[in-house]
């Protein structure tokens, strides 16, 4: 006789669902605190310093927003792919290639007026990022090649390639031997609004666009169907190969755009560390947002606090910023676990519950 009964449930209210998730996040923070405690730091102090470092002053808050921007756009890219169960973990590489495309334009046409130059840089970035995502999508649809490993390997190749350019052909001759790519011209950098580069406006617009695309267009619907069941999609006469490839180009294009924004808004040049792990963090944020475009906005803001907070405690408390990666992992572990309690009803089947039918049978 089983003591625990597990039943599938479909009737959970959204309020209760949200409650379970909040409890999961809360528990994960307690667990992360325990780990931090074991490692010899005071968790309360660490957490409060992180929050203080992320939103304590106006400058820090702006830094947080600047970290939220690439995270939001990359998450949007990732969620388009994840929605059709195409595991694109090549965000890092696609960001890099996007930055590379934008840099190519910026270095070759530095004297173009600002608007066309930035426009061309964006197009180049979207094209380069999209191309980097197209390669695995092509092999996936034609030959069934595992996209997880493919996209991941392309990350390494993109980063090595950018490093090669930075130390080789694209090295700025005017940098006295220091291996860096030349800075963009003034026209090749993003203008600012309210003291922040306009990437934040782009991010907000994209959230709305991706939301509309996924929920209110034919193509968006098709992506969701392919993700739910390829059989259904085939039965409905959809061209699965086409849908997968289009969606992946879109996914990579969005990640590529992130690369352009980081290059033109933050670094004002190309560096081999520009992607800064956003491609991986975006996997977590996209999943936590339940692959919902509006949801990513909220989740990414919270995660930006975590990232900026970690960057702050690295300086103020000499705790490596990797602490943020660890905490992110723990949060997602708990949320992944909590999904179970949303989908299934767990109840203790006591002796009585188990015995009753037998008695009836006897009678």
């Amino acid at each position, binding site marked *: 006789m089983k003591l625990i009964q*597990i*039943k*599938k449930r479909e009737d959970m209210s959204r309020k209760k669902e949200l409650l379970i998730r909040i409890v999961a996040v809360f528990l994960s923070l307690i667990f992360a605190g325990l780990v931090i405690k074991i*490692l010899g730091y005071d968790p309360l102090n660490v957490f409060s310093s992180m929050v203080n470092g992320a939103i304590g002053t106006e400058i820090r808050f702006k830094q947080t927003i600047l970290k939220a921007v690439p995270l939001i756009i990359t998450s949007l890219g990732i969620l388009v792919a994840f929605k059709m169960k195409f*595991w694109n*973990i090549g965000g890092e590489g696609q960001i890099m290639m996007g930055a590379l495309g934008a840099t190519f334009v910026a270095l070759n046409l530095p004297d173009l007026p600002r608007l066309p130059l930035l426009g061309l840089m964006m197009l180049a970035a979207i094209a380069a990022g999209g191309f980097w995502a197209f390669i695995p999508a092509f*092999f996936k649809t034609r*030959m*069934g*090649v*595992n996209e*997880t*490993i*493919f996209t*991941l*390997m*392309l990350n*390494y*190749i993109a980063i*090595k*390639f950018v*490093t*090669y350019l930075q*130390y*080789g052909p694209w090295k700025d001759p005017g940098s006295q031997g220091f291996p860096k790519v030349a800075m963009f011209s003034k026209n090749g950098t993003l203008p600012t609004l309210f003291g922040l580069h306009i990437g934040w406006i782009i991010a907000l617009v994209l959230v709305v666009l991706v939301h509309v695309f996924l929920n209110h267009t034919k193509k968006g619907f098709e992506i969701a169907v392919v993700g739910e069941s390829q059989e259904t999609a085939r039965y409905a006469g959809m061209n699965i190969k086409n849908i997968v490839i289009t969606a992946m180009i879109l996914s990579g294009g969005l990640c590529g755009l992130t690369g352009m924004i980081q290059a033109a808004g933050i670094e004002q040049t190309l560096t081999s560390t520009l992607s800064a792990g956003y491609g*991986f*963090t975006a*996997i*977590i944020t996209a*999943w936590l947002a339940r692959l919902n475009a509006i949801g990513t906005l909220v989740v990414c803001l919270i995660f930006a606090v975590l990232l900026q907070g970690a960057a702050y405690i690295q300086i103020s408390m000499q*705790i*490596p910023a*990797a*602490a*943020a*990666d*660890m*905490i*992110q*992992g*723990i949060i*997602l*572990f708990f949320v*992944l*676990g909590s*999904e*179970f309690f949303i*989908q*299934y009803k767990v109840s203790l089947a006591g002796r009585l519950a188990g015995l009753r039918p037998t008695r009836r049978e006897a009678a």
Partner: protein
Amino acid sequence: MEGFLAAALVASIPLLIATIGEILTEKAGLLNLGVEGLMLLGAVMGFIAGYESGNPWAGLMGAFLAGCCGSLMFAILTISLRANQVVTGLTLTIFGAGFASFVGKDYIGLPVPALIRETFSPLALPVLSDIPLLGPVFFHQDVFIYGSYFLVIIICLYLYRTRFGLNLKAVGESAASADAAGVRISLYRYLHTVGGGGLCGLAGGYMSLVMMSVWVENVVAGRGWIAVALVIFAAWNPFKALGGAFLFGGLSILGFRMQSMGIHVSQYWIDMLPYAATILIIILSSRNNRKENQPPADLSVSYFREDR
């Protein structure tokens, strides 16, 4: 040439052990993409255990246990709580990377104790090491490498010649049939995921304790992912994994060799080689449609008896 092949073998060992670990996991029907994270957990905990105790076996034990703990988390989430395996595995990698650089911060640049270095210094096996070419490459190595030869043999025997191996295959191919035949699905899945994860941890421990012998951040550098690809290349067969790992071990040290031989190819291009070769291999493997080279049919499908 002998020197190159011997070095290639050393470089292939962590790939081999991690690949075997992942083969065990996938044979049970679980796709654990957290190999990279497990290797990092093993690398850091193995290094700390070895550094603090000065004992080589304590170091390896620490690495193994760290891998077990990491994969136990994965197992609880994916087997009992039926979480998405792909996302859980990725999370494990992110967590492992963060944990390793967080915990390893105080050890950066510290060398492993002398006793450990001595224990893992190359040891020529009598008679065998005198065989031309093969001797110096395969039988003038450290004890860990000899141990991994045994591991391959034992795992092969276990998978193909025992009842447990047969049951395991059933669990991975069709959990529902195995369940009907009275095999305890969850038990098999837990044991092989945790054991496989332990091997991944051990692979990481070998990297930090023996190959590097100082703690450097991100020692694993993508090898966990290459191991995941090697599983496909090896068609879930530990013996074939031996060959695949050797090939990749060679590729990963090719750059150093070419430089020392005075051939000037940009370091960055050579660095790309193992990753590009991995892509090539998964493309080539996907063209291989023979029945025995297919993944376990129930790979990454969680089993829930009440769902049948």
